[in-house]
């Protein structure tokens, strides 16, 4: 069995499963946020008797509508907070960062787990070798009561990156290379598993970019076999489960990329798979630059940006939304924040920030922004005529310095 199949088999209480099988599985963790959580699920939960199957396995984070920009946001946040208090929810995070990143930081997401979440980027938790899948709010409400989810076992597509990572590339460039050559739908109903030398060398922050972007490829889940050395927070949920990488013979397809052949990339609007080399877009001038989101606001993202910005000044406004408060703490301690601020970056409160187009720096008509966020669908960060160019933190920082889309090698 593939890594994803082994984890689903355990959760379904079966010795084996095969792609296409429909199974009921017991989840290890059920997660939600202020947009998809209590305000949507409370009435359904009440209808189903209102009792959690296991309150210890429920996580709620206020990350989307915080800090509240309107009274409506404040009402949503207030309702969510009151609901969490009433239920004495232990794993409750109130404005401390984006749920997906908190799960990894806090060690709540663990290798071998089956995780369901009411958010499409739930797949991010695959970075530590979990099968993490997004579901809708109604379905999550039923899972909170029964602890069970129905799954169709996905075939696995193996994506292999050969060669070591050069200093000018990041995991985001790898993910965009996949989208460029295989498109935004090659992995529908499939598991995407990343392997290869370049992936093995990555820490959890960078791995999380690859698994996060799996949903943009259409995948059910993205996963990487866990690395335990040097990662004290990465502890398997069950010592008996085999968490080694899948072998090609068990996978539906294997796609191989030579890292040395890749260059810094940019996904141009209106789609995540409209990918071009940054160097080919240098004529495109920009109004704003943005570093943030569950894909691009982690400590490693801020450090990558600082590498470019050290001793330089930005020419266009650069807004930085750290994914979590822990990112703020660690980047404060190692001087990263000082570097960013000295370069002219503006820091915001942790959370989803402007990524979902709800607050904290929306784009106006026709504005052009280079950003580390997850998607560039028209209207995603504000006005539907605004243009979102997705890029790595290195490319975003380099572009903020020049005021136009820039290959970071030009600046580094």
């Amino acid at each position: 069995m593939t890594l994803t199949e082994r984890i689903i088999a355990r959760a379904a209480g079966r010795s084996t499963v095969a792609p296409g099988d429909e199974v009921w599985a017991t989840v290890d963790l059920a997660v939600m946020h202020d947009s998809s959580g209590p305000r949507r699920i409370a009435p359904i939960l009440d209808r189903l008797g209102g009792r959690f199957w296991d309150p210890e396995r429920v996580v709620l984070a206020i990350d989307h509508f915080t800090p509240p920009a309107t009274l409506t946001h404040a009402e949503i946040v207030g309702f969510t907070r009151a609901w969490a208090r009433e239920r004495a929810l232990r794993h409750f995070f109130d404005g401390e960062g984006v749920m997906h990143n908190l799960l990894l930081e806090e060690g709540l997401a663990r290798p071998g787990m089956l995780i369901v979440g009411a958010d499409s980027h739930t797949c991010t938790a695959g970075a530590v070798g979990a099968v993490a899948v997004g579901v809708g709010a109604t379905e999550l409400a039923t899972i909170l009561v029964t602890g069970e989810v129905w799954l169709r076992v996905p075939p696995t597509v193996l994506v292999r990156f050969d060669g070591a990572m050069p200093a000018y590339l990041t995991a985001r460039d790898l993910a965009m290379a996949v989208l460029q050559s295989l498109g935004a739908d090659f992995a529908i109903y499939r598991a995407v598993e990343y392997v290869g030398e370049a992936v093995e060398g990555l820490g959890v922050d960078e791995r999380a970019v690859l698994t996060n972007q799996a949903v943009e490829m259409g995948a059910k889940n993205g996963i990487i076999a866990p690395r335990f050395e040097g990662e004290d927070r990465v502890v398997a949920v069950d010592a008996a489960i085999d968490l080694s990488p899948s072998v090609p013979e068990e996978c539906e397809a294997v796609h191989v990329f030579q890292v040395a052949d890749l260059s810094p990339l940019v996904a141009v609007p209106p789609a995540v798979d409209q990918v071009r080399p940054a160097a080919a877009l240098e004529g495109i001038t920009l109004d704003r630059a943005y570093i943030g989101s569950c894909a691009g606001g982690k400590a490693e993202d801020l450090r990558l940006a600082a590498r470019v910005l050290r001793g330089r000044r930005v020419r266009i406004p650069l807004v930085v939304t750290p994914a979590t408060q822990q990112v703020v703490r660690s980047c404060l301690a190692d001087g990263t924040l000082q570097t960013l601020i000295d370069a002219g970056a503006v820091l915001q409160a942790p959370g989803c920030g402007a990524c979902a187009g709800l607050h904290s720096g929306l784009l106006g008509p026709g504005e052009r922004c280079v950003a580390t966020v997850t998607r560039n669908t028209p209207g995603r960060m504000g006005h539907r005529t605004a243009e979102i160019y997705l890029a790595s933190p290195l490319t975003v920082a380099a572009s903020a310095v020049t005021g136009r889309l820039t290959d970071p090698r030009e600046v580094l």
Partner: protein
Amino acid sequence: MDVLEGTAWVFGDHVTTDQIYPGRYLERPLEEAGRYALSGLDEDFAGRVRRGDFVVAGVNFGAGSSREAAVVALKQAGVAAVLARSFGRIFFRNAINNGLPAVIVPDTSGIRTGDRLRLDLGARQVTVLDTGAVLPVINLTGISMAILRAGGIVPFTEARLAERRRA
């Protein structure tokens, strides 16, 4: 619910949930969702679609964000089924879980807006009534069909919980 007849509204490939239900309406109450159905692509759709009509699309319908409002909006607007070559998987689950048939038809290219269609879930086929063309449906078996027949995951779960209490 096994046989449904409706008029087709045809859309293209990669219709996203941002287009089915734009993010700026997310803070509005779900009861109003129907007004904004597919407004990211066609501002007038919600005003013109008739109860019982079908949405027909190409590949990857409902890609992107997990917002359930996308499914709720289509249902409230009157859409009785969505036929596509493939679906964004969370949209697919949300549809089944809300009792909206999300039907995979490998080739939807022969269907035009305005065509009358008959969807037979039992026989797992779609008939284009004007031409008589019969298209196979390749999904909706097992658990997903059971949830759909129950009217969605909430009534389905209610029945399961009741069964457990009896056991």
